[in-house]
């Protein structure tokens, strides 16, 4: 596997990855492109008025989403970005969600608009 993604990769406006921080502080590194493409909220946050200096790490604190839920969300971001790149004619695999997580993921999805 490649090098683990660290915070260093998130520095600056042109960073490849961004960090999503859950309510309990756990951080998830997601590809910036994927996140922006799939989640409208993240796109707005990153394009918004918050100035992005050179030394700033691109991280978003989502204090209303639990880490377990956020993990599922991050998986979905990657899944959706991958599916979007599929050519026509290819079938997309399903994204399974456990019923126990459904409600929380629903809330998170509603917030992130993805």
């Amino acid at each position, binding site marked *: 596997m490649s090098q683990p993604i660290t915070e260093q990769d998130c520095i600056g406006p042109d960073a490849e990855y961004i960090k999503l921080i859950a309510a309990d502080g756990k951080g998830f590194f997601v590809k910036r492109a994927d996140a922006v493409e799939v989640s409208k909220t993240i796109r707005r946050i990153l394009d918004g008025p918050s100035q992005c200096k050179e030394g700033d790490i691109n991280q978003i604190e989502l204090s*209303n989403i639990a880490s377990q839920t956020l993990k599922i*969300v991050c998986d*979905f971001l990657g899944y*959706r970005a991958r*599916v*979007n790149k599929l050519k026509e004619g290819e079938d*997309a695999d399903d*994204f399974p*969600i*456990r*019923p126990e997580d*459904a*409600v*929380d*993921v*629903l*809330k*998170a*999805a*509603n917030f*992130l608009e*993805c």
Partner: protein
Amino acid sequence: MSVISFIEHYQRSIKKNEDDESRLLHCLEKLSNLTVKVSDLEATGIGRTVNSLRKKPGKVGDTARGLVTSWMKLVENTANEDHSGEEKETIEHNGYAEMTSGDKEMSSPENCSEKYNNGLGETVKVKEEKSKSRHSHKDKKAVKEEPGTRHSRSDRKGEESKGHESRHSNHHHKRSDSSHKSRSKDHKDSDSRSKSKRSHEETKIKTELEESDTYDPSDFEGLKIKEERLSPAEVCKYDPEVPAKVKKEKESSHKDKKEKRKAEESKSKHKGESSSKKPKLETERSSSERKERHDKHSKSSTTKSKSSEKIKKEVKKEKIDSPETNTMNGNAGPSFEEALGNLDSAPPLKKSKDKKKSKKDKTSSSSSSKTSSSTKNSNSSFLPLPLPRTEDLASLLDQPTLTYKPLPSIPQKSSKSQLSDSNMFSFSDVIKNKNQRTKVYSGTKSALTGVPTLLEICQKVLLENIDAIEHVGSAPFEVLEPVFSKANASQLLRIQHHNDHFYEELDDLWRTLVETEFKSAIKQEDECWCDVYERSMIERNTKMSELAAKIKANTEARQAPQRKTMLAFEHSLAKPPRTIRKQQIKNGTANGSLPRNVARPTYSEPGPSGLSSSKESTLARTVGLLREGPSTAIKSKKRPAPLMQKTLQLMKSSYRR
């Protein structure tokens, strides 16, 4: 040029003292006394000012009118004088030659024209002349106009008109010619006033020419007319605008005709006929008349479409004429003839035809003026108009543009197609696949839509597990609504139990449930829909139970009877077996006896109800029978059967013998 300075002085005074009648009169008199040249007139633009005074009532108007007419005559005279005699001859010669060539073209319109009343004859003649003139000057006249050439053309026209007039002595021609000639004169002069006038005149001439052109075989005459009327400044503009369909030759021929007409008209003016108003009137009348005729007899002419176009041109020109005449400003600057022609109500007419025409024209001009405005712009759509000058624009812009071009129809197919796409199971799809092998997909409909969002995935999962939904937490109701709406009553109750904060929203869901299940349920006050649902449910259940009970009872009643135990010989004497009965008879105990212990009730005392009574009654009957017992026993002798008796008798009888 002192004359010009005088003219300008009077012009200024007129403009300053428009209300001062005496002053105006004075100025007009002075102006009339002045020996003015056409060039002076055009240079100062006095014509326009005097024209504006024509409207004034009383002596001022009369004087102004007289002055204007005299000046117009002057203009005509000068135009006619410029024409040389040689051109006349050439015109005549060529005109005859052209007649043959033009005969074909003219035949049909001529025929058409002949059908109409005499008033048309003049116009037809004018056309003929024009066509002749055009043909004659085919080579001479170039497509592109230039001021010099135009002037020459106008000159030629004047000469042609003279020549034509010699052939066709027609007042109308003359008038028209004079008007044209005056216009041509104006064309010659290169003043602002003349230019503006010219543009007006050009347009007017166009109308007139077009009017006459209506019977001409080609529409291009009208175009040519336009070209001819173009001012030098406009020539460059207009030339590229000439529609491709217009052939150069035709254009030249048209121009020739135009010039001829103009020449004729100018010549007629030169001959000193009635006021220049007449030609205008005539031309207008003729144009309107022609219009009418064309409208009526559209089929007769081969140049039907052309004529229609011409009519439109005419109308357009008339429209241009009308606003020009109406404005009567120094800026608008309508030409003399046009203004006078339109405004004068009763021009002196030498011929009865003119009178007729005038009447027609008056009525038609008014209508045409109305229509001209509408058609003016419509004509523009057909043929490119020369761009009007700024002076003209001011007058033109005052008129409301009534062009109507229907908007391109918005294609409705897109919306329909969208609809069909959105609804996967649309009617068209169903019908389309009627004879095709339909593919069967398992699963939900949503499986065929695009990639679902995380939200949709969650909703789907929740839908599958409604029964498991408990506390929802902080999720907004809108997100959960599609899930809850699919819940039935019990599930909804459960959800409500766990999520009181959705009480109101869930009540709406209850309402829908009530309405779907209990259509006749009525919500009472102080009752939420949930309660309504419960109440209606209970009512239904009770109804059901009642009905069930009734049915049950009915069915039980109709069932087959069960096995019952009954008392034998309840009301009759017990019947002993046969052997015992024989012995009873032998011994004399046939009727049986009741046991001694038993009471012996009498017959007259029927026992009380119940089994006990029935027993007593039977005993009583047996007692009665016992009393009668012996006698019956004795009496009941054994008798053989009747047949046996007979045989015994026979045997006895046979034995005794």
